[in-house]
């Protein structure tokens, strides 16, 4: 296995003075690392080079470039798209607290062991099964067109409201499963430890199980949040002028797809750092848990 994280011994500055002090193993690993870096660089150059040379040679390239990568149109529609993206962020921001709260409640309901509360358990199971089983886009269409059809007055017929409600329904089901996995990953001995002290079952849940569960599921939870950020664009189907809808409007106006590319860029600027951050958190969590003894 090659270690991609540079250790102290392979920083350029330390090598010259420390050449003599390198162990045979370190010498070997240094050669190996150089070799893999060279190979990686060469193969990347070949692939990128081939794309740059051959794609423009394809018969349709000129047309594609004009209708997807028009610099002027990009600059023209970018600020409008950015404005519309604020809507996405707003929908995301007000939906998230509800998603987390409802998701956690559902997860706890699914873990209640009191027979009297069995209906809650059943309800939580049905809820997660249904909303995880239906594509988000369908939930949005059904709620977004169905509920306002009841003839409600303003503001209760707002597509923002019902679009957000649909997102909350769908994502709270996903998040509930994440929380549930976290709760079940806390070892039974933690429960025994807490109950033996006289803590009730709900006190044990609240002070011992849930805090540990939440810590463990932060990376998958954030993955779901990144997905949500993208799926907010789906509410465009029921009316709100958020970024995807705005891009569609611009596309029709200019008869050109560049606004879609611009919208994609805006998403990527946000989601790439986010996913990298989640990867980093996950890796750190793995290092931390594999480094300590099993309890």
């Amino acid at each position, binding site marked *: 296995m090659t270690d991609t994280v540079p250790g102290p011994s392979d920083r350029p500055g330390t090598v010259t003075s420390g050449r003599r002090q390198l162990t045979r193993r370190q010498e070997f690993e240094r050669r190996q690392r150089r070799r893999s870096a060279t190979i990686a660089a060469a193969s990347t150059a070949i692939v990128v080079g081939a794309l740059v040379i051959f794609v423009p040679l394809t018969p349709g390239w000129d047309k594609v470039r004009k209708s997807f990568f028009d610099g002027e149109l990009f600059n023209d529609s970018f600020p409008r798209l950015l404005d519309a993206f604020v809507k996405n962020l707003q929908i995301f921001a007000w939906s998230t607290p509800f998603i987390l709260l409802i998701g956690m409640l559902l997860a706890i309901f699914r873990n209640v062991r009191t027979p009297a509360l069995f209906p809650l358990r059943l309800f939580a199971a049905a809820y997660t099964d249904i909303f995880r089983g239906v594509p988000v886009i369908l939930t949005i269409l059904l709620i977004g067109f169905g509920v306002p059809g009841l003839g409600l007055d303003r503001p209760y017929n707002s597509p923002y409201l019902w679009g957000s409600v649909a997102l909350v329904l769908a994502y709270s089901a996903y998040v509930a499963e994440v929380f549930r996995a976290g709760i079940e990953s806390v070892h039974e001995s933690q429960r025994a430890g807490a109950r033996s002290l*006289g803590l009730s079952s709900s006190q044990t849940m609240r002070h011992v199980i849930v805090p540990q569960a939440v810590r463990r599921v932060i990376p998958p939870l954030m993955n779901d949040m990144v997905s949500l950020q993208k799926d907010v664009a789906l509410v465009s189907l029921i009316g709100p002028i958020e970024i995807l809808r705005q891009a569609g409007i611009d596309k029709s106006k200019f008869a050109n797809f560049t606004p879609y590319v611009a919208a994609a860029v805006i998403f990527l600027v946000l989601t790439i750092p986010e996913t990298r951050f989640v990867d980093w958190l996950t890796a750190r969590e793995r290092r931390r848990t594999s480094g300590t003894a099993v309890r």
Partner: protein
Amino acid sequence: MIPKLQLIDVRKSFGSRVVLDGVSIDVADREVVAFVGASGSGKSTLLRCVNLLEPIDDGQVVVDDVDISVPGLPVDPIRRRIGMVFQSFNLFPHMNVLKNLSLAPRKVLGVSRSEAENTARELLERLGLGDRADAYPDQLSGGQQQRVAIARSLAMSPEILLLDEITSALDPELVGEVLDVVRELKGGGMTMLIVTHEMAFAREIADRVCFLHQGQIAEMAPPDKFFSSPENERTRQFLQRVIESGRF
């Protein structure tokens, strides 16, 4: 005199597997009883039944002449009077030592935070952990973790303490510091049920030693008699095996 704790014909099965097949014993106030027996003979189950972590199938668990094992009786008020320390410590890894100790007194007994923390600090001081109050469990050695776990039980001022192989997960050089704490507790008059593989320790600390075999107490005697002239053939075989494995 009324015994502090009575087990009367306690029975417990998991599915079709009978683990406790009629266990009876009277434990006097301030008495220390050690339980030994092969792995899987039901020692942990017995302790878990005493503080109702496992509901028993039949029989009675009686504390201070009150049957606490009546089905349907609220168990939390009973558990807080009976402390338990586990082989794997079961400390709360997301709380520092002080929080581990003060959580139950605050939430269960309604003690104020400052009072609970003061008591916790005193306990830690007593167990030689005065400087570790702010540490998290994974920053402590196994011996320190187990002493914290004992302190956490003591923070509830239990009347009876159950110790389940509390040194089995420890490196040999850390066993002593934990056993010292148990010695101190005995000196203070704590009623204890101790499951242990440390025969020398059982002999030293227990007022009586019980040998658990096939879900029953096959032999029960004061330690000197138990280890020098056991009556039951099974006990002799068990002790023989322990001696051969070099643990005694």
